[in-house]
């Protein structure tokens, strides 16, 4: 293993790229919440507009560690903290394709879908194979929910051997598509009856990277795998009852009411929430739904005006708000959300 101190690693590149994508329009605090996966309206919008969804919730830093990270980036000459933008040197490190490829494969963590599926599967395999080989074992997962789930599953009568063979086949096929280094990172995290999974440090040695990058390879690999297996794959049984929806549960409830034909005012009175909260829910719908009735919330000519006024590559609301007369921030956000999704109204 090599000392990571002064070297530049892909993991640094990923974090630098996340700063770069904010284009100096958001604060240090904004990124902190995205990295931690805070499911508030502002943070979800930041992740959506600035293409940070792939890393949403994947870097659960403490405030202290986050500060340390920024200090080190600044010290190494990569970051201007005053504007929260990258220096030329920092931009260089964020620019390689390898960085953006890894970044965009990470997938992000919204409702614990990816993590919980991993915990269930890895614990199940360890448990089942250990019982099969009559080996005592030390569970690699300490998550009570996963534990309980696996306990119930293991007890049920099924053609387990056949199923396990299918799991193996599905994993192998998917990992062939995903390819190395991701495949190695994923496979070496598994624990069987005779072999214990590797820590990120050990995987780092195998792949000749640092431990943080090894962790990202695992996360990217596992996420890519879940997206690669066919929809009817048996292995997706481990995602049973889990949702990978980006929309918050609360917004989803409001959406269901809207879908049932309620008006904004009715939804608000049924749910007994503030106007601004329901507005946030509507923004979530505009961000995440394939079809969204934008003209119910913004007049058609205003939609076009916002699109014309927007400076290329910027998602700052304020300039638009100042240049228009009758539009609220809420309305501008809605238009932005649809523009961001690639719709156009001019």
């Amino acid at each position, binding site marked *: 293993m090599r000392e990571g101190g002064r070297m530049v690693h892909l993991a640094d590149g990923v974090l630098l790229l996340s700063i770069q994508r904010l284009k100096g329009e958001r604060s240090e605090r904004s990124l902190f919440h995205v990295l931690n996966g805070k499911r508030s309206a502002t943070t979800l919008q930041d992740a959506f507009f600035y293409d940070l969804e792939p890393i949403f919730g994947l870097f659960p830093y403490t405030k202290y560690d986050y500060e340390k990270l920024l200090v080190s980036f600044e010290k190494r000459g990569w970051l201007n903290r005053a504007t929260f933008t990258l220096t030329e040197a920092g931009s260089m490190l964020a620019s390689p394709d390898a960085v953006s490829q890894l970044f965009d494969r990470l997938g992000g963590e919204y409702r614990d879908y990816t993590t919980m599926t991993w915990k269930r599967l890895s614990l199940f395999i360890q448990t089942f194979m250990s019982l099969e080989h009559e080996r005592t074992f030390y569970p690699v997962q300490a998550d009570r929910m996963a534990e309980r789930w696996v306990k119930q599953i293991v007890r049920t009568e099924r053609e387990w051997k056949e199923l396990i063979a299918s799991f*193996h086949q599905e994993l192998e096929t998917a990992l062939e598509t995903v390819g190395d280094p991701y495949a190695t990172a994923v496979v070496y995290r598994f*624990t*069987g009856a005779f072999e214990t999974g590797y820590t990120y440090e050990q995987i780092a040695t195998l792949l000749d990277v640092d431990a943080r990058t090894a962790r990202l390879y695992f996360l990217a690999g596992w996420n890519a795998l879940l997206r690669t297996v066919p929809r009817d794959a048996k292995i997706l049984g481990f995602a049973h009852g889990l949702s990978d929806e980006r929309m918050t549960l609360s917004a989803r409830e409001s959406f269901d009411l809207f879908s049932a034909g309620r008006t904004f005012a009715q939804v608000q009175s049924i749910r007994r929430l503030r106007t601004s909260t329901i507005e946030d829910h509507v923004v979530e719908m505009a961000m995440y739904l394939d079809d969204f009735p934008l003209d119910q919330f913004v007049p058609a000519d205003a939609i076009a005006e916002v699109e014309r006024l927007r400076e290329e590559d910027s998602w700052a609301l304020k300039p638009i708000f100042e240049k228009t007369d009758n539009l609220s921030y809420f309305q501008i956000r809605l238009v932005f959300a649809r523009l961001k999704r690639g719709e156009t109204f001019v």
Partner: protein
Amino acid sequence: MYEKTLKRVFGHETFRPGQRDVIEAVAEGQDVLAIMPTGAGKSLTFQLPSYLKNEGLTIIVSPLLSLIEDQMLHIRERGERGVARLTSMETLEEKQDILNHLKRYRFLYLSPEQLAVPHVTRALARTPIQMLVIDEAHCISQWGHEFRPEYARLGELRKQLGSPQCMAVTATAPENVKRDIIEKLALFSPSQFVHSANRPEIRLIVERLETERKMPRLIELVREVPTPAVIYTATRREAEALALQLDDALFYHGGMSTEDRRLVQSQFLRDEVAIMVCTSAFGMGVNKDNVRSVIHFQLPATLEAYMQEIGRAGRDGEPAFAVLLYAEGDERIQQFLIDQQYPKDKDIRIAYLERDNGTSLSQLPRLLKMNEEDPVWGLLNQMLAERTLADAVNWVKERKRARYRQLGQMIDYALIKKCRRDYLLNYFSEQPVKQADCCDVCGEISFPPSVQVVSKNVTDWKHRLARIFSFD
């Protein structure tokens, strides 16, 4: 009859030395203080009586989640389902469910904080209790090396539970700690069982060297000593740095993710990795019989801690080695760590002043730039409630002085030119023991030729995946 239960429940043919006496005393209903070294089979002595008498719940108070987890794992492994725990990991509903159905359980593990929760205490007071077990009982004593303020209330809580039969167990307790345990738990003329702290199978070695020589020597040493081996160090950062420098070594500390910690433990338990570099976070409750060597790269804070840590070697009874690397000035790290565990004089004064001027307690941590989770704040908070300013300042001074004194005894162990075993035994008020292969002062200790226990398998991912999913 004891042997029958031993066979039926635990699957063992015979008791380990000393276990039977303790169990007899427990079965006769006496309060018991048992001081048994790590690996002597403490937990069996409070578990087996539950199967002999079956007169209600056995409550076990334990200070660490990892200890509780580990013991429960072992109980469940042998097929016992009547075991539950109340810790910070359970949801409110789960806790309530356990409390509503206490009759289902034979063993209940909980932290001292949980036992002190009023509705928990009340629920337990209503159910028949066979015995209250205080594990790691030395934590109750301010003279002990791991004093925990939460333990101080256990005597009172025992009374609230209707003063059930009580058993206090610990691995190490010098005379003053022992007195504290008996007094604070109000043990009524307890039967005392003090196993010798001596671990004859462990050879004791100290190497004194220059600070710059420590790292090169460690690299040599791990090739000489038999493995599996544990290397203890003082800080997380150092644990990581050492592991990086050594072949076939992993680090373990409290700052890692749960999954990684479990992977490391599992690899070590299964002899998949030869060397574990760790802080004192590793070890409590880890049952690995074949650890052959324990190396200390830094001094522990006390002789008790040292005994406990080297006690993880040679639990199978086969020869094992404890090596302490000591360079002059090493004690400074421990001094620093000790100082960090107590509020500074200045902060104590500010806290009292502010409190007396009407500043609310909830404001204080921010004012003092302390984290509310920080145990130092917990301590200060407790002092504010119980002591005058002068008393508080004095108390901290006393405590630090006592801790420095204990550290001094640890340094002496490294410096003495007499038998090290004698020195340790004397500390625990025991008579000297003569044995061959004792310590580096008594005679030269040589390491046996190393046998490779550890297996390494690195292959491409497809083979690895196939092995994990293989039924052969």
